[in-house]
């Protein structure tokens, strides 16, 4: 599969650019607008969790931003990947090419956005939270790779399912929202009772987010078990997800 993707890299890059252009060409403020939305949400979340619920996390805003955009990246990736095959039916119907490219273009487009947001988050954390650069941040690229593997593993089977079932695109946001509550997006891992923590961390999304919190918010190196475990989970999800996609791939042209 990988040599195939390399051969189609021109197509992949064009699809990514097109994906990003389509999102921003209509908005005057462009990328700034897509930052304002999560920013507004973060302000509200801080008010709710810090002042009303009094969750008891030091500098809650720092905790929240270190994981929130990572979660949003997963949400957006899955949401936009769901429709990507049917949106490009004109290609699937009349060209032989690996349909995985379509899903990947969606993932990569969202990744570009996420990396831009992450850069701002890192700067904010370095300046206002750590007042310095913790060594743990060097692990960021590794975590991002694990994160992307997970995103691909989730996006692929959903994109395939959306070809056959029209309501997948509506069902996905609901399912994701529930998954979001079962992951340390709004609350830290430390609040999860110890006896449940291992099972809780079997959720790959929870594991990846915990990693982000460790290196970005806590500023310390994560335990090797968490790191290796998350990498393994993400890889498994990716392999299964891509596998499911490829099994159905042959039928796309007949259904669309």
């Amino acid at each position, binding site marked *: 599969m990988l040599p195939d993707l390399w*051969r*189609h890299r*021109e*197509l992949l890059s*064009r*699809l990514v650019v*097109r994906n990003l252009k389509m999102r921003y060409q209509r908005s005057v403020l462009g990328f700034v607008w897509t930052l304002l939305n999560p920013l507004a949400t973060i302000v509200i979340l801080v008010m709710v969790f810090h002042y009303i619920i009094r969750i008891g996390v030091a500098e809650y805003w720092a905790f929240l931003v270190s994981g929130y955009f990572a979660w949003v990246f997963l949400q957006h990736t899955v949401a936009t990947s769901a429709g990507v095959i049917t949106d*490009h039916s*004109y*290609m699937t*119907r*009349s*060209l*032989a*090419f690996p349909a995985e490219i379509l899903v990947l273009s969606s993932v990569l487009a969202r990744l570009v956005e996420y990396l831009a947001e992450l850069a701002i988050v890192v700067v904010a954390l370095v300046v206002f939270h750590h007042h310095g650069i913790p060594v743990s941040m060097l692990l960021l690229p590794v975590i991002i790779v694990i994160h992307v593997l997970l995103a691909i593993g989730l996006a692929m089977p959903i994109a395939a*399912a959306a070809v*056959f*079932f*029209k*309501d*997948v695109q509506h*069902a996905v946001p609901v399912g994701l929202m529930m998954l979001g509550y079962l992951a340390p997006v709004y609350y830290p891992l430390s609040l999860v009772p110890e006896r449940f923590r291992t099972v809780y961390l079997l959720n790959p999304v929870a594991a990846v987010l915990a990693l982000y919190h460790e290196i970005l918010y806590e500023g310390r190196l994560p335990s090797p078990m968490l790191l290796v475990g998350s990498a393994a989970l993400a890889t498994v999800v990716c392999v299964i997800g891509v596998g499911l996609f490829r099994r159905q791939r*042959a*039928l796309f*042209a*007949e259904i669309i």
Partner: protein
Amino acid sequence: MAHAAIAEPQLRGPQAARANAVECVGVVKRFYLYEHRTTTLQEFALRTILRRPPPARSATFQIHRLDLCVAHGESIALVGANGSGKSTALRLMAGIYPPTEGRIVVRGRLVAVLELGATFQPELTGAENVELYAAALGFSRREIAVRYPEVVAFADIGDFMQVPVKYYSSGMRTRLAFAVAICADPDILLLDEVLAVGDESFRGRCLTRLARYHAAGGTLIVVSHDLWTIRQLCSRVVWMENGEVRMTGEANTVLDAYEAAASRAG
């Protein structure tokens, strides 16, 4: 058994004579027709939980059996009544979907022009679509830039290149699709009813260009109802009927038989 597209470089010399450009061995293609297909997850979940049987479906064999070998540099045509399986055969060779049984082997770069320029995204302009299509065919940025003027010249749609494709006529779409395909200079070119669309001047240019393509050693497989053009272009004709090859051989021989049968039936 899956479609194996072997992207080997063109074989040269005596080896080329032995290897075929396209091989269909024991190919069968079955489609399912559903009275009502489950199109929502909701329905699927309910059906599974309530243990209802899956919706009834009937199998239709578009291709009962296809054995076909096309040598490098050959120019063949598939003819037959509507529904005889010609377009399905073309799509199988193009790798759009895999055969239900059998094996399809393609050696070389294959470009197919099917469905009147369906490879275009209606919202994008002609120029953007050409670049996207070329990228989908595997061309690099530089290669696309080099071939682009040639495509524009051949398609001859002028300023419409900067207009979204949804405003194009079907003829314009076909001309553009064909222009990209032929300028891609593939090893194997598949054309599905493309030559029927377009005015005399375009058809003339197509034939000239295809003759050049053939002279350079390209392999051509067309599906067409235009028997006159087929006689000009192709050396071999495959007559398909009800998903099987009824007759194959020298172009004029098969076409005469085909026309005779058609006039008998009509």
